[in-house]
C-alpha cells in the first residue's frame, strides 16, 4: 500500500505545546507539492497537557478518507509511547526525541532517534521559544526523511506567520536543525516519501466549519446567535471573521449581528425571532445543543418560521466524546421536539458542500418556512479537507419564499397566514411593520386556524397538521437530490451513505471492485427523502447502510420515511469516534453480505 506519495504520518504530541500549528504546516506543505492529502486532528477535550495526534495521509491516487495503519510515527509524547509504537505498520518507522534514549520493543520497524530536546536546549534559552520551535525541528527532520521541497515548506511557513521575518527566521532555523540532523544520521529519503504531483493542483485545503461560515455570508445571513460548543464553535467564528472582512461598510457599519447567547435555548430563540422578522438567521451547535434547542425547533416547525441550524455532530450520547466524530444525531434532528414534528435536513459530505449547501439551506428555510438543519460532523467541520475551490455564480438568485409586501397585501383578498393558497402546503407570510392595517397575525405555538387564531377545535387542528405534512411532501421535491455513483452495470448490491462517510465509501467501492464485488452507491443529501432513494433501494437486492452510529439511525429513517423493507437494509456501523476508513467499510460489508448471496455469485 505505502510508497511514494502514498503514506500515513502520525504526529503524537502534547496539546497546548504549539504542535498543532507545526503539524498543519507539514500537511499544507505536502498539499502544496501537489499531493492530495487529508489531515485528521485527533485531539483531547482539554487545553493543555494531554495527548493529541495529528494524522496526515498522502495519496497520489486522490483518496482523501482516513487510512488505517501508520507508516511513520513521530512520537513526541512519552505518555503515549506504548500505543504509538503499536500503531506503526510492520516495516514502518518511528521517529522520537532520543534525548532520553530508550529501547523500543519491536524488531519489525525502524526507530529513528534525534536528541531534539538536547539540541534545542543548546540553541534557545527561552523555554517557551524552545518548546514551540522544537515542533519545527521535528517537522524539519521529517521533511528530509520524506524528501519534501524546502522552498515549498518555507513558503508555507512564511504564509503561516504572515510574512513576518521575525517569526519566519527562527522557524526556518529550527527546520534547518532538523533537516541537517536527519540528512547526517538517517538513510534519507525513506522509501515512503514525496515527489511533486498534480492531484492537488488547483484545490484548496479547508475545514467544513470555515466553509459553512463563509457559505452563510454568501447566503446573506445577517443574524447569528450561538453558544460555544465543540465542534461547532469555529463555524461561527469563521462567519464573524468573514463578515468583518466582507460585510462592513466604508463607514464602519456592520451588515450583520452576532450574539453570543447565554445558552443554546437563547441562541435558537434569537435565530427564530430574527427569522420571524425577515432576516436570514442561524445558529450552530452540536448534539447537546440540539437537545436543548428541541423545544424551539418544535415551535419553528409548528409556527412555520424559517431559520438554519448547523449541527456539527460529535460523539454522543450525553456529553459523549466532545472531540470525536459521529453521525449519531440523525433521528434527534429529524424528529427534534415533542408532538408530530419533523425537520428538513441537509447532509453535506465535505467542506465544498458545507459552502454550497449553506445557500441552499437558507433558501429552503424561507421557501418552506421551517427550520432547516444542516447536519455536518466534527470530521468535516474541524479537519482540513482537500476540495475544489469555492465557486459562486453571480447569476444565482435567492429564494426569499412567500412573503407578502404592502402592495401584495393591498391586492390580497382574505389573507390568512396559514392558508394553503397554492396547494403546495406552503402558506404566505407577512413581516411585522409591513402594512398599517393588513397582514398582521399572531404567531403562536398553540394550535391555530388558517387565520393564525387560537383554536381548540380538533378538526381545525388536524387540518393544519395535514397541511404541514403536505408541505413536507413539497420539501422532498426541493431538497438536494442524492448522489448516485455506479459500481458497474447490473450491480445487485447497493450502498447508502451520507456526510463524511463518502470518501471512505468511494475508496471501499474501488477495493471491492478489485475483490470482484460491484456496489452502487447512493449518498443521501437531504431529508425528507426524494423519490430516488426508494427507487435505488427497489433496484438492488440488498442495500448496505453505512453510518457512524450504533443504532443504524439512518436505516431506521429509511424504513420509516422511505418505506423500505427492514430486511433489505443491512447496517454497516462504525461508532468509535474516529473518521471512517475504507478498510473498515470493506471488511464489514464483506462480513455482512449474506453468505447465501456470496455463494450464489
Amino acid at each position: 500500500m505505502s510508497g511514494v506519495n502514498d503514506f500515513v504520518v502520525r504526529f503524537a504530541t502534547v496539546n497546548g505545546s504549539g504542535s498543532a500549528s507545526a503539524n498543519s504546516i507539514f500537511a499544507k506543505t505536502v498539499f502544496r507539492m501537489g499531493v492530495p492529502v487529508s489531515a485528521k486532528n485527533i485531539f483531547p477535550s482539554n487545553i493543555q497537557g494531554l495527548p493529541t495526534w495529528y494524522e496526515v495521509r498522502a495519496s497520489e491516487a486522490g483518496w482523501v478518507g482516513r487510512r488505517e495503519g501508520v507508516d511513520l510515527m513521530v512520537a513526541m509524547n512519552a505518555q503515549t509511547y506504548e500505543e504509538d509504537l503499536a500503531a506503526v505498520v510492520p516495516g514502518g518507522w518511528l521517529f522520537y526525541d532520543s534525548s532520553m534514549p530508550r529501547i523500543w520493543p519491536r524488531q519489525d520497524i525502524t526507530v529513528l532517534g534525534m536528541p531534539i530536546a538536547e539540541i534545542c536546549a543548546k540553541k534557545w534559552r527561552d523555554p517557551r521559544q524552545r518548546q514551540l520551535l522544537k515542533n519545527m525541528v521535528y517537522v524539519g527532520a521529517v521533511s528530509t526523511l520524506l524528501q519534501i521541497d524546502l522552498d515549498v515548506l518555507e513558503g508555507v511557513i512564511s504564509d503561516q506567520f504572515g510574512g513576518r521575518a521575525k517569526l519566519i527566521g527562527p522557524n526556518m532555523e529550527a527546520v534547518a536543525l532538523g533537516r541537517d540532523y536527519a540528512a547526517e544520521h538517517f538513510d534519507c529519503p525513506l522509501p515512503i516519501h514525496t515527489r511533486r504531483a498534480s492531484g492537488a493542483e488547483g484545490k484548496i485545503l479547508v475545514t467544513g466549519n470555515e466553509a459553512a461560515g463563509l457559505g452563510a455570508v454568501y447566503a446573506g445571513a445577517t443574524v447569528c446567535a450561538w453558544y460555544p460548543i465543540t465542534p461547532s464553535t469555529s463555524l461561527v467564528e469563521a462567519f464573524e471573521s468573514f463578515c468583518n472582512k466582507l460585510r462592513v461598510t466604508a463607514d464602519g457599519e456592520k451588515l450583520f449581528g452576532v450574539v453570543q447567547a447565554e445558552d443554546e435555548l437563547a441562541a435558537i430563540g434569537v435565530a427564530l425571532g430574527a427569522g420571524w422578522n425577515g432576516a436570514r438567521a442561524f445558529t450552530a451547535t452540536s448534539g447537546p445543543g440540539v437537545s436543548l434547542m428541541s423545544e424551539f425547533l418544535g415551535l419553528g416547525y409548528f409556527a412555520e418560521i424559517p431559520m438554519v441550524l448547523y449541527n456539527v455532530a460529535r460523539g454522543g450520547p450525553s456529553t459523549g466524546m466532545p472531540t470525536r466524530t459521529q453521525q449519531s444525531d440523525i433521528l434527534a434532528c429529524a424528529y427534534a421536539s415533542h408532538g408530530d414534528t419533523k425537520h428538513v435536513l441537509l447532509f453535506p459530505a465535505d467542506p465544498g458542500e458545507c459552502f454550497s449547501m449553506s445557500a441552499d439551506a437558507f433558501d429552503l428555510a424561507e421557501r418552506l418556512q421551517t427550520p432547516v438543519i444542516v447536519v455536518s460532523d466534527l470530521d468535516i467541520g474541524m479537519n482540513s479537507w482537500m476540495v475544489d475551490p469555492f465557486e459562486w455564480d453571480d447569476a444565482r438568485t435567492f429564494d426569499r419564499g412567500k412573503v407578502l409586501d404592502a402592495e401584495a397585501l393591498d391586492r390580497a383578498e382574505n389573507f390568512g397566514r396559514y392558508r394553503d393558497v397554492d396547494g403546495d402546503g406552503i402558506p404566505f407570510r407577512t413581516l411585522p411593520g409591513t402594512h398599517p392595517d393588513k397582514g398582521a397575525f399572531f404567531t403562536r405555538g398553540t394550535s391555530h386556524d388558517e387565520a393564525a387564531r387560537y383554536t381548540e377545535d380538533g378538526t381545525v387542528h388536524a387540518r393544519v397538521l395535514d397541511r404541514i405534512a403536505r408541505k413536507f411532501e413539497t420539501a422532498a421535491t426541493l431538497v438536494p437530490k442524492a448522489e448516485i455513483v455506479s459500481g458497474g452495470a447490473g450491480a445487485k448490491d447497493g450502498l447508502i451513505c451520507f456526510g463524511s462517510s463518502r470518501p471512505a465509501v468511494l475508496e471501499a467501492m474501488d477495493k471491492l471492485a478489485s475483490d470482484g464485488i460491484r456496489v452502487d452507491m447512493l449518498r443521501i443529501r437531504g431529508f425528507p427523502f426524494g423519490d430516488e432513494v426508494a427507487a435505488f433501494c427497489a433496484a438492488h437486492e440488498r442495500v448496505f447502510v453505512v453510518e457512524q452510529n450504533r443504532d443504524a439511525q439512518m436505516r431506521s429513517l429509511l424504513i420509516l420515511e422511505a418505506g423500505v423493507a427492514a430486511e433489505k437494509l443491512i447496517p454497516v456501523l462504525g461508532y468509535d469516534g474516529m473518521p471512517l476508513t475504507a478498510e473498515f467499510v470493506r471488511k464489514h460489508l464483506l462480513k455482512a453480505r449474506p453468505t447465501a448471496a456470496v455463494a450464489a455469485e
Partner: protein
Amino acid sequence: MSYIAKPIARHPKLKRNALGLTHRDYEGAMSTLCAGCGHDSITAALIEACCEIDLPPHRIAKISGIGCSSKAPTYFIKQAHGFNSVHGRMPSVATGANLANRDLIYLGVSGDGDTASIGLGQFAHAVRRKLNMVYIVMNNGCYGLTKGQFSATNDRASPSKKGAPNPFDPIDLCQLAITLGAGFVARSFSGDKAQLKPLIKAAIHYNGFALLDVISPCVTFNNHAASTKGYEYVRAHNEALDRVDFVPLENEIRAELAAGETRDVLLHDGSTLRLNRLDADHDPEDADSALTAIRSRAARGEVATGLLYLDPAEQDLHATLGTTARPLNAMPMSELCPGADKLAAINAKFQ
C-alpha cells in the same frame, strides 16, 4: 370558543390622535382572562398609552412567553404582529426580532413565572445586553393558568388562597434589573392607571432596556386578604416614590416648577421625561439610592412604585454590536452576498 373578536362599533366623538386613530384602533381581540384580572387593566393602559403617543400600530411588535400574561398581547393592538413564543423565552425571541429590524417598537409581555422562574436566565441576559425593548411583567405572584401555585415573586409572608405559607423569599425583578444594568426600571400597579400610563410612554421612548414590573392581582388565585399581591394590600401599601409625566418632542412645554421637586430628563429621541419626586431620599438616577429605596420600603411591608431607576445614558445592543442603522431584514441580497470576484482571494488563502 377560544377566539372572540371584538365588535368594531365606536362612538363618533371618540378622541383621535395625530394619526387620526382612536384608542379603539389599538384594541385587540376580546380578553379571555378572568373578569377583574389585573392584566386587563394593564392592557387598557397600554392601549391608551400607545394611542396617546401616536404610535403607528403596525410598527409595534408584541412578543410574549407562556402564561396568562403572555396571552395578553392578543388583547391589544391587533394591527401589530404578535409572537406568543415558548415559556420563559420571550427575551431571546425579542433579541432576534430586534436584531433583524431595529426600527420597530418591541413590547415584551411576560409574567412572574415566565420571567422570574423559567425565564430568569433569559431575562437577566436581555438586561445585560441592553436590548432596546419594553419588558412588561404582569406580576401576580402566582401561576394562574395552572391554578395558583406560588411563583418566585410571591412574598414569603404571603400565603396561598388555601392558607399554605410560602416558604421562600421572593425575587425582586426591579432590584435584579438595576443590578444587572437595566437603564429604565419602574414598578407600578395595575390598579393605578394614572401612574402606569406615563411610565409606559416613557419606557417606549427610552432607548435601551426598560422594565415595567406591574403588580397585577390574580383575582382567582391570589387576591385573598392575606396576599401581598392582592388589590386590597397593594392599594393600602403602594408608596409612589415619584410621579412621571411624559412629554413628546412636539409638545414640549417648559413650565417653571420649584427646583428639587421636578427634574426633566431629555431622552435620546428628543422627548422629555418629567420626574416629580415624592421621596426626597430617592435619587432615581443613582442605582444604590434606588436599591435602598426599594429595600427599605419592602422591609416596612410597602411596595415602592414609580420610576425607580433611570440611566440617562441610554444604550442599546445595536450600538454595542456596531450594526448598521438600516434594518438588517431590509438589506438587499446584493449588499449581503460578497459575489464571485471576492472568492478568488478567499480561495487563495486556502491554497
